[in-house]
Every structure is written in C-alpha cells, then in structure tokens.
C-alpha cells in the first residue's frame, strides 16, 4: 500500500518527543536537576508544537487536519495511522498544558526523581497516542500504555494506601480493555470475511455490515473499556481511591487527562462503529449519567478528605459530559467537549491547590483545616476561584460547558434537562462546603505559614487565566470542534 504522509511528520514528532525525553531522563538518572529540566523542556516543547499546530493549521474543517499512514505489521494488517482533527487537537493541547503543570507541581520530587519524570513523560506519549491513533490495534496499544506509568505513579509515589489503589486501578481498567481487545479482533475477522481485506483501520471497519445483535455485543465490549475509564456510574469505584492515593502530578493527569480518553474513545470509536446499538443505548447512558451526577455529588458532600471531594466531583462532572453526549445534538456535544476541557483545567487546578495546602498543613482532613485566608490570602484566593469555576459560576470555565449541555439536552429531552439542573445545585453544595471549611471556618494553625512561592505563582497564573478565558470566551475552542462534531453526528440518529 502507498505511504501517504502530508509534509513533515508532526504527529509522530508530538507522539514520540515525550518518549525520547523519558529515555534521556533514565540515562541521566544520577542528577535530579538535569531530569527536572529535561522533563520540563520536553513538556514545553510538546506544548509549543501543539500550539503551533493549532495556530498554523486551518482548524475548524471537518476532515483531518493532519494525517499519517505507514505500514507497520503487515501480516496482521495493522498500520501506523494517526489523524488529528479539531477534537483531538483540543485534547492534545489540554494534555500538553497539564503535563507542564504536572511537572512543575512535582518539581521538588525527592524520591527517585529520574524514574518519576520518565514515567510522567511515558504517560504523555500514551495519552497523546490515544488521541491520535486511527488504527484499532495502535489505539489499543496506547490505551494500555497509559496503564503502566499510572500504575507506578500511584503505587510508588502515592500516599498511605497506594498499593491497594494502584492495583485496583490496574485491574478495573484492564478488565475493561481486554474485552475491548476481543471485540477488536473479532470485528476485524468479521470484516475480513465480508470483504476479503483484513485491516484494523477505523475508516474501513465502519463499513462492516453487522446485525443488530452483533453490533450490540461489540458495542458493549467497547463500552466496557470506555465507561470504566470515564468512569460512568456504577463503574467508578476505582476512581476515588486512585485519585486520593496518587501523588499530585498523578491526580492532575488522572482527572485532567485519563478520564477524557474514555469519552474520546466513545465518540471516536464506539459510537461511529456501532450506530444502531448507540442509538438504542442513549437512554441507558443518560440514565446512568444522571444517577452518577447526583450520586457522586451526594457522596462528595459527605466526604471528609478534600481530595476525595474533588475526586467525586470529577465523577459528577463526567456524568454531565456523558449526559450531553446522550442528548445527541450539536449544541450538547459542543458543551460536553467544552466541559471536558474545562473540567481538565479546573480539576487539575484544584488538585494542584490541594497538594499545596497539604504541603503547608500536612493534612487533607476537612475537620483539621480552616481559616487559611488569614495566613495565606493569595493561595486562598486562587482556591476560591477554582472552586467557583468547578461549581459552575457564570464567567468561569465550567459554566460555559454546562450551560451548552443543558441547552442541548432541553432541546431534545426536556425531562433529562430538568433533572440535570438539580445537579448544578448539588455541585454548589459540596463545593461551597469545601470552600467554607478550608478557607474560612475555625482557624487551624498551618505549620508552614508562607504564602505562594514563585514557582507556585507560575503554576497558578496560567491555570487561572485559562479558567477565566474559557469561561468568558470559549468561542475559539467551540469553532475548532464544530466541524468534527458535525461529521460525527451526521449520518447517525
């Protein structure tokens, strides 16, 4: 087959740069300083390349902005196919940005720094790969590649119950993905029998003719992998543990990025491959999303560990995202994807803040915290901002996404919309409790009274700017994803 690659292989560059950085890190394992700067340099470079792609490419079109296709494992018909459209571009921008934050927040990592930074970079390759891959086996490879670094990040650098959380995370996600693997292989065989061409290319497999029963079976196998990652109620039980036990950078990556790969897998693979089954499943998805939305919010309200509150808030927000997808119209989808980006930024920021608070107070227990405003006004101000963004205050990040979802859902299913509005209220409840108990309330003496240091300012300012920008002017992001969403929605229910 002909090799079709347009211009310089930017996508491969984007994909393999972090891996190169990881290898260099392992080579320079003796010096923590070198590793740090190397990792920061690599992540910034990836961010610059993705920004360049965003500004140089003619974004907003429906087709692929960039596409790469090379032969890879011919005996199985597996090809190295990468494609970038508006949706993956946005998610990659988010990935590149949050990775820089993750590196900065773990700047003082003292425990095996080379190993740590190498894993963070390896994780970045895995995540970017998931957002780019268009060959099902290639996708699966990157999907699994995300697992190992995250497993080690939680298990080695996590808190008290880290091993338990790491194993739980690993088993939950792998159980889902092995079903995905079986479905991928049998879909490939079926397509091969029908057409005589054995290939794992997404575009070709979409043409496979399936009976409704087959479609449903495959769809369930695919969704098993994706809903665990999202995580949709009732598959969420790994998430609070993983989030709580993970180190700061791990939590930022988990909440900001890994959860998004699940949603991305649905819209890029599961929905387009099995349109009939998708159509039938939408009410179920919506139902689970609504349950998750309220259930997680309720549990978040009852938590005493501030990290667990934010973890459950993630489940709740992702429920919102899935609800938007289930509404199946342009507005709701735009809202869902926007909320994903916004959630990545705000929740990432909240986990960063929690790490900073813990550094100063030595605790994450909500009872032992309080009155931070007195000693650390700057830190508290940022915390307030991100909490408000998270609860969906108009003008800040999450609001734009949520309102679009609600508008879209009301247009097609007013009942769902009416129920979902209550979710916003719940979010306000647990977030306000968090703010009240941590910033105000009875004062407790932090042992480290210093306010933000230079590096922390450097982390928080971009996050804060982004939160305000995405809240007030989400137009550029919406325009980038408009075309691809039309394409994904077109030709389906």
């Amino acid at each position: 087959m002909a090799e079709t690659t347009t211009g310089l292989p930017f996508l491969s560059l984007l994909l393999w740069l972090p891996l190169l950085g990881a290898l260099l890190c392992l080579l320079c394992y003796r010096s923590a300083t070198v590793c740090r700067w190397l990792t920061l340099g690599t992540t910034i470079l990836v961010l610059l390349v993705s920004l360049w792609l965003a500004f140089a490419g003619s974004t907003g079109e429906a087709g692929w902005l960039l596409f790469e296709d090379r032969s890879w494992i011919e005996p199985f018909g597996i090809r190295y196919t990468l494609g970038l459209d508006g949706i993956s571009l946005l998610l990659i921008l988010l990935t590149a940005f949050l990775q820089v934050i993750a590196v900065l927040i773990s700047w003082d990592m003292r425990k095996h720094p080379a190993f740590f930074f190498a894993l963070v970079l390896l994780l970045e390759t895995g995540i970017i790969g998931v957002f780019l891959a268009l060959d099902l086996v290639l996708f699966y490879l990157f999907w699994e590649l995300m697992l190992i670094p995250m497993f080690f990040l939680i298990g080695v650098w996590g808190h008290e119950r880290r091993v338990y959380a790491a194993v739980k995370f690993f088993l939950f996600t792998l159980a889902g993905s092995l079903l995905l693997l079986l479905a991928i292989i049998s879909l490939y065989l079926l397509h091969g029998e029908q057409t005589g061409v054995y290939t794992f290319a997404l575009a070709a497999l979409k043409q496979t003719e399936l009976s409704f029963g087959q479609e449903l079976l495959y769809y369930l196998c695919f969704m098993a992998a994706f809903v665990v990652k999202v995580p949709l109620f009732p598959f969420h039980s790994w998430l609070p543990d993983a989030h709580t036990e993970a180190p700061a950078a791990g939590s930022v990556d988990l909440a900001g990025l890994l959860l998004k790969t699940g949603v991305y897998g649905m819209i890029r693979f599961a929905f387009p491959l099995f349109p009939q089954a998708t159509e039938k499943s939408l009410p179920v998805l919506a139902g689970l999303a609504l349950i998750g939305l309220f259930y997680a919010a309720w549990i978040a309200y009852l938590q005493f560990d501030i990290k667990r509150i934010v973890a459950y808030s993630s489940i709740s927000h992702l429920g919102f995202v899935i609800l938007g997808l289930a509404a199946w119209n342009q507005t709701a989808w735009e809202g869902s994807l926007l909320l994903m980006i916004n959630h990545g930024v705000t929740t990432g920021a909240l986990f960063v803040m929690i790490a900073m608070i813990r550094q100063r107070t030595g605790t994450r227990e909500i009872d032992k915290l309080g009155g931070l405003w007195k000693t650390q006004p700057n830190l508290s101000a940022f915390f307030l901002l991100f909490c408000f963004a998270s609860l969906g205050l108009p003008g800040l990040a999450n609001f734009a996404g949520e309102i679009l979802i609600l508008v879209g859902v009301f247009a097609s299913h007013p009942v769902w919309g009416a129920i979902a509005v209550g979710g916003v209220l719940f979010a306000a409840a647990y977030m306000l409790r968090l703010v009240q108990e941590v910033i105000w309330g009875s004062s407790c003496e932090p042992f480290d009274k210093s306010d933000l240091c230079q590096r922390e300012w450097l982390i928080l300012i971009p996050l804060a700017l982004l939160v305000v920008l995405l809240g007030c002017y989400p137009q550029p992001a919406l325009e980038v994803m408009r075309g691809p969403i039309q394409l994904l929605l077109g030709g389906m229910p």
Partner: protein
Amino acid sequence: MSLLELQSLLPQLILALGATAVLMGGAWLENRRVWLVIGMLLALVAACAAALFEPPLVEVAGMYGTSLYARFCTVFWSLCVAATLLISCRYADLHRFGGGEYASLLLFAGAGMSLLSAATSFVGLFIGLEAFTLVLYILIAFNRTDNRGAEAGLKYLVFGAVATGFLAFGIALIYTATGSFHFTEALAGLQVENSLRPLGLAGWAMLLVAIGFKISLVPFHLWTPDVYQGAPAPISGLLATAAKGAVLAAFLPLLGGLGEAGGVVKEVLWLLAILTMLVGTFAALPQTNLKRMLAYSSVAHMGYLLVALLIGGAVGGQALLFYLLVYSLATFGAFGVVTSWALAEEEIQDYAAIRGLGYLHPRRASALAVFLLSLAGIPPLAGFFGKFGIFHAALRSGYTELAVIGVLTSLISLYYYLRPVIVLFMQDRSAYQLRSGCREEYLLLGGCVAAILFFGVYPGPLLELVALVLP
C-alpha cells in the same frame, strides 16, 4: 551412515561430539570458565551451522528431517543452550560446578532437543526426547550440596520415567495399528477405518499423557513447581523454555498430519487446554516464591500454547512459534534475574526477600518487571502480540470459548505477575544488598529486554520468519 547423512546432521553432530570432547577435556583441564565459554561457542557454532549450512539430504536414516522448520528449531535450542551457559558463568563459580561436565551436559541436552524437533519417525522422537530428559535429570540435581536439588532431580526422574513408559507404550500401540514408525505412514494408517484403529487411538492417548508430563499440562503438572524451585535457576530457565518448546515443536507437525483422526485427539486437547489455563492461573495466585510462581505461570502459558497447537495449520503454527519465542525470551530472562541474584548458599526466591530490591538493583529489577509484564501480555511488550496472535487464531478458527477463557485467565494472571513488581518497587526496603551483576549477565538480560521491547513494537520481522519456516 553415509557421508551425506552425516553432513545433514552437522549441527547435531557438532553439539554431541562437542559435548563429548568437552567432557573428556574437562577431566584434564579444570578451568570452569574456559569450558563454559567453549561450550557456549560450540552451541553458537551449531546454531550458525544449522542456519547457514544447506543440508544435502531431506531425511536422515528415515528418522530425522532436515527441513527449514527443523533447522530453525535447532538454531533456537542451540541459542538457548548458549544463553544458559552464558548466564551460568558466575552461578557456576558460586556453587563450584564442574565446568566440563556442566557444559557438556548442556550441549548434550541441546543435541537431544534438536533431534527431537527434527524427528520424522517415532523412534527418532523417542531417542531425542530421552536424550535430553536423561541429561536434565542430572542437571536438575547438579548442585550436590543442595537437598532441594536432589529432591527435584528425583521427582523429575520418577515422573519422567512414568512418562517414558507411556510414550514407549503409546508408540508400540501406534506401531501395532499402522505397521510403521514413520510419521507419514503411521498417520496415514490411522485415517483408514479398520479394526486396529482404536488401538492406534489408544496409542495416541498414551502419547498425549507423555506429552502432558513433559510440558506439564494439567493434570500432569504436579512435578513442575517443586522441580523448578529445586533446580539451579539457569537450569529451571532451560526447563521452562527450550525443553518444553522442543516437545511442542515436535508435536506441531505431528498433530497437523493427523487429519480426520485428529478430531478425537483435538477434543482431548481442547479440554486439556482449558484445564491447563485455568488451573495454572489459579494455582499461581497464592504463590510467594518467585520460582514457584514462574513454574505455575509456565503451566498456564502451556495452556495458551496448547490452544495454538490445537488450532494447527498455518495460523495456529505461526501463533504457536511466535508465542513460544516471546514466552521463552521473557521466562528465560526472569530465571536469568534469579540466577543473577543468587547467593552462594541459597537463591533469593521469596517475595519477602526481594522487598524494595528495585532501588538497590534498579537495572535487574526493572528487567524482571519487563519480563513479568511481557508474560502478562501488557503492550508494548512482545508478550502482547504473542497473546494477540493466539486469540486472533482462536477466534478465526471458531474457538471463541478458548479465546474468552484465555482473556479471562490473562486478566487474573496480572495479579501474580504484578505482585513481585509491587514487592520490588512499592514496598519499603527489607532486602539486603546483593552482588552487583557481572557483564555476561547484563549482556544477556539486556539482550532479552531489548528483544522483548523490539518485538513488542515491531513484531513484523519475527512473524515473517515464523511464517517462512513453518512446514
């Protein structure tokens, strides 16, 4: 035997004669390193001879074939023997092994394995199998001061002797039914419906029992953990890889030639595969000893390989050989790490003894993690494409239930593969500093890791090679 026949058996002759020479020489010159290195070079020469030298005859004495497949197997087993000798360098020093005997026995084992996978008649098969099994009895108990080693050797001997009995009786029955030892005629004889056919099938049943013992299929696997635990680590590595691989490789063409009569045999194999996958996996779960865990893991992997053997044909054969290669790389590497960590008085095997070792010996611990994750089938390591190939072949041939069970057991297997990794990297240090690795060990382990990573990312060349050599 004519000169041409001898030429056709050149690699096996190099191994066997070389072994004799090393054994003789070892009596005169007592230098361990020299003989290990010479043995390794001989094995490498045999591998080169098998790879590069075109044998003039297709079949030797009606017993051994010289097909591309047989030559490929010879290359692979010779390399395994060479690798075992290389990794044993310091281990042999620590335990004061007699260098000449050790090297010579391993070379004999290599010759036996290569004869086994080249066999084209039941006599050849029997000779090959016995040749290397006899050698292994000695090698397992090679450490004379170790009681566990003696126990393991005896256990292997008893089970091996029973298996040999079954094998000989099975061959006799097949001979009675078909009137020939040669594979093609003996297999063709079974296709004909006559009164002797049940006898032939009974012979096959005996044969399966013998194979079951040799490659430790459930329910014939009971010797495996004890023997692997007691044997010197490099020998356990050889037992788990080449010794099992040679038997599987010999039976792949044999089962393929069974044709119609294979239906009954395949039903038995189907059941054995399921049992082996399940029991191997569940038995490995509670293990807290690295070598015992690897023993049960090898049982479970034999189950996967049996699935490929059952599918047969080009698809199954490719999957089997590919899986065998990547499984061998990882298993051999894992035993290599155990070898490298061994102390003079004992081997470090218990999980409690390797806690936190990952930060004392990061390179070898990381290598072990890579090997275990590859065995678990996590991409981007080679084990993933091995499993991928087998599940793919199973689904393609309509064995959906085997693929599903395989996927489930892979999932469960993660638990016992991750446990040592967790112990190595995620628990507080209780381990004491071990010897730093020597150059030979790093060379070999590094090579295994590199190969696993390379074939995990780019398995194309290996898949093509495997497709090329299949009969």
